[in-house]
């Protein structure tokens, strides 16, 4: 198990390095940052000074090395837009709002998606199943940004107690967290539904029923436990998609989190902030995938013994 964790951690670190390389190349190879950032009427000497100050006069490999070295210390340099603050500091300021929203959304996903998936499998073919399948289809297909605008128009504006934007009391969490959660609810519903249908049809479930185990415990214990392992492998993908959705939703609701910050920074061409955010998000995704892999290996010994490939 320790070996498995170690190998996957090394892979994760390599992945983050590769992502940092992609982010860096995109940043540098698509143009000279100074073309965009330096005022048009800046003198040659001033421009040269700025170039040296930001380390843009060095060779690309050298720039990349110092970018990595600084990034490891959490230092992404000063924000171009707010020169008195560091990119890292600005992100840290905005992070709590995003985390709180993300936690509420995850809570919704788990408490709505999983029970509905189970219900849908147990009552297969019933009206409840049809509604659940419809919800899953809708959640997979709806563009979050549009749903957010429509909910503002149809719910937030007529019902005055729900704010249309920004962060405030608990009611300001309702709409953004629901819109972020809709894709995750759909995904978990589908995954749990098909996993439950598979286990419910298996021999040991029949045995449990023959032994006289009550239907409730057959479902909750004998079927649900093995059925929850399979969907776990997809959590990484669902989480990535929800992060993407969260960025867009934060923008629509002007939520003061990191997603909205990325949008503001990109529009202001505040390069260090966008760069740091891209790297930060990639790291979150890699760590999340690592946790999923390790949990999966813990639950299913075949994986860590190398008999079954995760991808």
């Amino acid at each position, binding site marked *: 198990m320790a070996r498995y964790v170690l190998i996957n951690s090394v*892979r994760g670190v*390599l*992945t983050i390095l*590769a*992502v940092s390389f*992609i*982010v860096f190349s*995109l*940043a540098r190879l*698509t*143009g000279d940052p100074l073309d*965009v950032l330096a005022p048009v009427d800046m003198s040659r000497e001033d421009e040269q000074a700025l170039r040296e100050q930001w380390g843009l006069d060095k060779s690309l490999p050298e720039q990349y090395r110092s970018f990595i070295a600084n990034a490891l210390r959490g230092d992404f340099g000063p924000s171009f837009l707010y020169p008195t603050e560091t990119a890292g500091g600005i992100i840290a300021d905005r992070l709590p709002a995003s985390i709180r929203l993300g936690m509420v959304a995850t809570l919704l996903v788990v408490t709505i998606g999983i029970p509905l998936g189970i219900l849908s499998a147990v009552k*297969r*073919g019933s009206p409840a199943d*049809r509604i659940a*399948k*419809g919800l899953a*289809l*809708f959640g*997979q*297909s*709806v*563009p*979050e*940004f*549009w*749903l957010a*605008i*429509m909910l503002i*128009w149809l719910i937030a*504006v007529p019902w005055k107690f729900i704010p249309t934007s920004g962060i405030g009391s608990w009611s300001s969490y309702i709409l953004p967290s629901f819109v972020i959660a809709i894709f995750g609810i759909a995904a978990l519903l589908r995954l749990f539904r*098909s996993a439950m*249908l598979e286990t419910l049809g298996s021999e040991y479930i029949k045995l449990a029923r023959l032994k006289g185990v009550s239907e409730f415990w057959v479902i909750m214990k004998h079927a649900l436990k093995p059925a929850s392992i399979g969907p776990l492998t997809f959590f*990484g*993908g669902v989480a990535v998609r929800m*992060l*993407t959705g969260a*960025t*867009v939703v934060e*923008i*629509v609701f002007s939520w003061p989190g990191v997603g909205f910050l*990325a*949008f503001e*920074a*990109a*529009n202001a*061409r*505040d*390069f260090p902030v*966008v*760069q740091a*955010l*891209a790297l930060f*998000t*990639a790291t979150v*995704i*890699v760590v999340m*995938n690592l946790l999923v892999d390790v949990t999966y290996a813990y639950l299913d010994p075949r994986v860590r013994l190398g008999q079954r*490939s995760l*991808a």
Partner: protein
Amino acid sequence: MPFGRLFSGSGRESPTASSEQAVGTAEGRRRWFPWLRTRSDKVPWIPICIIVFLLLLPALLADVITVHDPLRGVLADRLTPPAWIEGGSWTYPLGTDKLGRDILTRIIYGARISLTVASLTILVGASVGTTLGLMAGYFGGWIDRVVSWLIDTFLSLPIVLLALVIVAAIGPSFITIVTIIAITMWAYFARQVRGDTLAVRESEYVARSKVAGSRPWRILLRHVLPNVANTLIVLATLQVGVVILSESSLSFIGAGIPRPNPSWGVMVADGRDQVLIAWWISLFPGLAILLVVLSLNLLGDWLRDFLDPKMRQRR
């Protein structure tokens, strides 16, 4: 019951009405229409119609079937509501935006953008992904380790943020968005093809072909590729929906198709501030995205069952 009909693609529980009626007609149908010859023989006609009439035809015939200019409007007619609402007129069936541009015309031209972006990214993604997936799955060893790691890496890329990085550097453009989406698209294809190839590699016919002395590329093209083709078609169908959602999301936040081009995402963004007084600007393009992606998902699910009974999901 239209709601039930919409799900006909996945409604395997109910036996088809036709097979319960005159056996002769049902059999005749099966004989003359071989694509109906599966257990799930309800072809999802409604989703197919939506894809044809909301995506394919508008994209191909945009200049023939529209009368208005998608980019330049009549300022005097700005914010005209849809035709069936007081103040609307059939000149602009779905109303106009704040610059007096016809919403319907822009939705039709938007289909062209969605379809172009989807075709390009999926073409690139599927060819690169299939090649790498085949190689990784068939040869194994270090090739497999490198490709698998690349798949993991590219699937961990936060594409919205990457798009914002590029936008901060050089601004939005058509090429940028195609590149950004294709960068992650190949990984989905590679992952799928790699998994399928691993399974096919162990099969009897591949072993016999090896014994017969076939070279690896011949085995890959003649025996492995045809066997992974079905899942490729399913994945490509489903990914068209994913691309349309990604493209419109990126365009919505200003990191995709640049204005004034009528991408559906840009159109929703255009109406965002006026949703209270002119809801039609945002509503209809978003509805177009929803309906097209929903139909693609239904079609993809149906194709999965239709093309490969082994992969049939329990529903």
